[in-house]
């Protein structure tokens, strides 16, 4: 009961990656800063934005990024996953 709250582990580093959420046939990614050893959808350090991979009524894929906190985490030395790199490379 409550013993899994503080997970101690060896190694691991901070990554910025996508956490999948949403319903059947309806994915929704949250851009999240978490330890690399955590479950994909588990406890994260901070949520930095979101991405909706399905196009909306105007044919756009909406993404939001919290640039200020992103800069903070990248300054702390976080790594990026491959799709996160692609997403952040789009707006330049």
């Amino acid at each position: 009961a409550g013993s899994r709250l503080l997970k101690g582990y060896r190694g691991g580093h901070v990554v910025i990656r996508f956490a999948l959420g949403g319903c059947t046939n309806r994915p929704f990614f949250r851009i999240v800063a978490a330890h690399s050893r955590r479950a994909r959808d588990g406890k994260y350090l901070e949520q930095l934005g979101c991405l909706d991979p399905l196009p909306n009524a105007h044919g756009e894929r909406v993404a939001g990024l919290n640039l200020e906190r992103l800069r903070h985490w990248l300054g702390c030395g976080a790594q990026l996953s491959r799709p996160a790199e692609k997403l952040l490379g789009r707006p330049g």
Partner: protein
Amino acid sequence: EGKATKPSFADEAVQNLLYKMTGLNLQKVFRPVKKELKPPKYKLMTEAQLEAATGKAIEEAKEKLIMPPVLNEREPIDDVLAEDKFLEGTETTKYVFTDLTYSIPHRERFIVVREPNGVLRKATWEERDRMIQIFFPKEGRRVIPPVVFKDEHLVTVFQQDRHEDILNMCIAQFEPDSPDYIRVHHRTYDDIEKHAKYDLLRSTRHFGGMVWYLVNRKKTDGLLVDMIHRDL
């Protein structure tokens, strides 16, 4: 046209004039906005207290009558940041990136669209409004502007004499310098002036804007006749 310096809407003198013309009908300003029914409360006061209460009521009425700003139409944004030909054909849809930093005013946010042909451009005003509404919802706004603001439906609203309600909705929904806001306002003022229904807006905060519009287009005859009849 013909004057050297045209007075703008935000001048002190103009504002004072418009405020005096708006009239201060306490009964109408504090007409109960539809809320839950409560039995009216009666207070027993002396003369002095009654005057103090009336003074406070006038202050609050003044606050409610602050006019929404009248600005020119905003220029459409058309700024291309980058053109990357090598990205052509990799995706099929547009990507809209919104900057979600909390402490940036909405006017200065970066909202950027990456088109499928690789062009990176700033988002248009409609896209900006939509994104800001999605991520930072404001009360009274919807993501897609309601259908009521189209011309054929505006006619229906005018036949029901609910100009004030639709103007309030319009203020809540659009930015003051968006072309939709300006178009709806102009349409409303035109209709009121055509049917001489100045009374509907007499003691609300839209009166100043209406008078400004009529003065700019020199259609004030009906309004002046109306005011003379009432000896204002």
